[in-house]
């Protein structure tokens, strides 16, 4: 953990967030509109993202109180607060400001969770994170 923080607290990270997190309003609320917790789903589905108290923008935009969505699929590791949200098959980025996504998962139980990232894909302070949903895909 220490290693990773050292690694990512490098000059690579934009100045806006290299030494501090971007503030989010206390009333910001991130949630998954659909599917709902406990859903049984057949095949691919549209996952829809909801945000209150803040605005959705594209990555790179430093306008106050705006961010962009990241959908975490089957991620169990705790969120690291000061580093860019990883980008891989379990961390989907929506840097163009998308508010929904077509998700195609293999059959079985899965979890879904949204995290709002700032201009540099780093979680806000306090973190704007949705409840983690459990779904079953068949």
């Amino acid at each position, binding site marked *: 953990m220490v*290693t*990773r923080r050292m*690694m*990512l607290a*490098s*000059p*690579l*990270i*934009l*100045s806006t967030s290299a030494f501090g997190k971007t503030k989010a309003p206390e009333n910001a609320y991130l949630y998954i509109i659909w599917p709902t917790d406990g859903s049984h789903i057949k095949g691919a589905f549209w996952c829809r993202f909801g945000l209150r108290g803040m605005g959705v923008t*594209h*990555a*790179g935009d430093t306008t106050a109180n705006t961010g962009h969505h990241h959908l975490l699929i089957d991620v169990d590791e705790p969120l690291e607060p000061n580093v*860019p949200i*990883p*980008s*891989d*098959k379990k961390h989907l*980025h*929506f*840097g*163009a400001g998308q508010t929904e996504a077509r998700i*195609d998962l*293999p059959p079985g139980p899965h979890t879904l969770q949204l995290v709002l990232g700032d201009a*540099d*894909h780093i979680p806000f302070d306090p973190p704007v994170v949705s409840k983690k949903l459990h779904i079953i895909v068949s």
Partner: protein
Amino acid sequence: MEDITRRLAAIVIADIVGYSRLMSADERGTHQRVQRLLRELIEPTIAEHRGRLVKQHGDGFLSMFDSPVEAVRCAIVIQQSMVSRNLELPNEQAIRFRIGVNLGDVIVEADDIYGEGVNVAARLEQLAEPGYIYISGGIYEQVRYKLVCGFQSLGDRRVKNISDPVPTYRVLPDPTSVNNATTGRKKLWYGLAAAGVTSFGIAFATGSFWHPGWLSSAITAVAPPPSVAPKPLAVTDKPVSPPDKPVPPPDGDRPAAADHVLEAAVIPVRPQIEPPPVASPPVKPVAPPTVAAAITEPDMVPIPGGHFLMGSNGDLSEQPIHGVTVRPFLLAKYPITVRQWQDCTRAKACVYLPKGDDDAPVTNVSWDDAHQFITWLSQATHRPYRLPTEAEWEYAARGGTETRYWWGNTMKPGFAVCKGCGNAMTPTKVGIGPPNPFGLYDMSGGVAEWVEDCWVKDYRGAPTDGSARRSATCEEHVLRGGSWNNDQDDIRSASRDYYNASVRYPTHGIRVARSP
């Protein structure tokens, strides 16, 4: 009946700068010196390189060679030898050649050769500065990987009475020899010979082969970077070369060609002081504005064409495994570095201001940024750089292997930088692990590399001819190789990732390609 013999030949034309001035100052002495030069240097050197002296005239000669490599070597030997000979002469007696070399079809007669190939060589010779060799694109393509020296692109030059512009290159000594010139006099051309061009037939006299035209510009050169660095149009026949840096061009007093140089490929000499951190205005180059310098052009590795099985069963996105035929192409040996990107930023052709060490791979670039870079690089060098296609990338990454990684099926310490490789860290330089079978570095891990293709979730319907997958509505493009912040599974040769084309992310970088 007329019997015309045509053949392809490398033509070397040289003439003596200021011959009439030399003659008017000392007709008899000049004639004797030139005759002696021909007898002692020119004729034996041409013979040594298996060329033919077609004809000689008062102020120069015309020769032809079967081999472009031998032709250029011969020209280099002559120029080197002239430098040492002139050191012994008072300046007003110094004899300096301009040399042009071209590859072309010629009509051969008993005592002369004719044709456009000869005319182009003559024009190149006229463009060249005293003491220099200019070669055409045709020659360059033949010799670039076979000679230890630098080639500075001067762009496409229009030459008199020739309809098409001629891609023109200035032959430079090995760039590393220029580094040392910072400390004073330097045996520049000598350094070139010592660096490994072994077939030079001339035994060099001891003493300095310093070419006065080189030094003043070489003084502005900066110390070489500590590690692997981009090469300025330099080629070598050794797989690993000493650190390089931009080759400063010859200094100011050049013929009218100088203007063209500036509008052609080259840009100002790299500043001695690196640009301050982001968001500051670009640093003014140290070099005088009239002095152009070589772009730190990427070191390109020729990738032979071939057929391979693309994809794997490792992930749904990598299926179905399908056969792809890839044509020969060139791929950069390393990802583009911060230093190379800064040339584009400085030219105001790239919006993105990179951060990190000069020799680190550039990061946090979007696919759109990457296209700005390759557009600029192509214009600046007059060479069609592009992103590799996804098929080309995987073919190159595999280097003929079918395993998870090019070195096998399991991670090996020190072979890649990734989360879970035991060394997750922001790369501070390129060329970290060993090269793959094609001689490419950092294909696995490090920075994820943009390719041209539009992202499609699997390979159903993917092209099999090595071309890029495109789509009219394409917002996401493919990234390959995984990054320092990915798991081992995401840095396999077949692993695929994607991202929005306009969005920057800290682990994304680029590697450039071009067709031969």
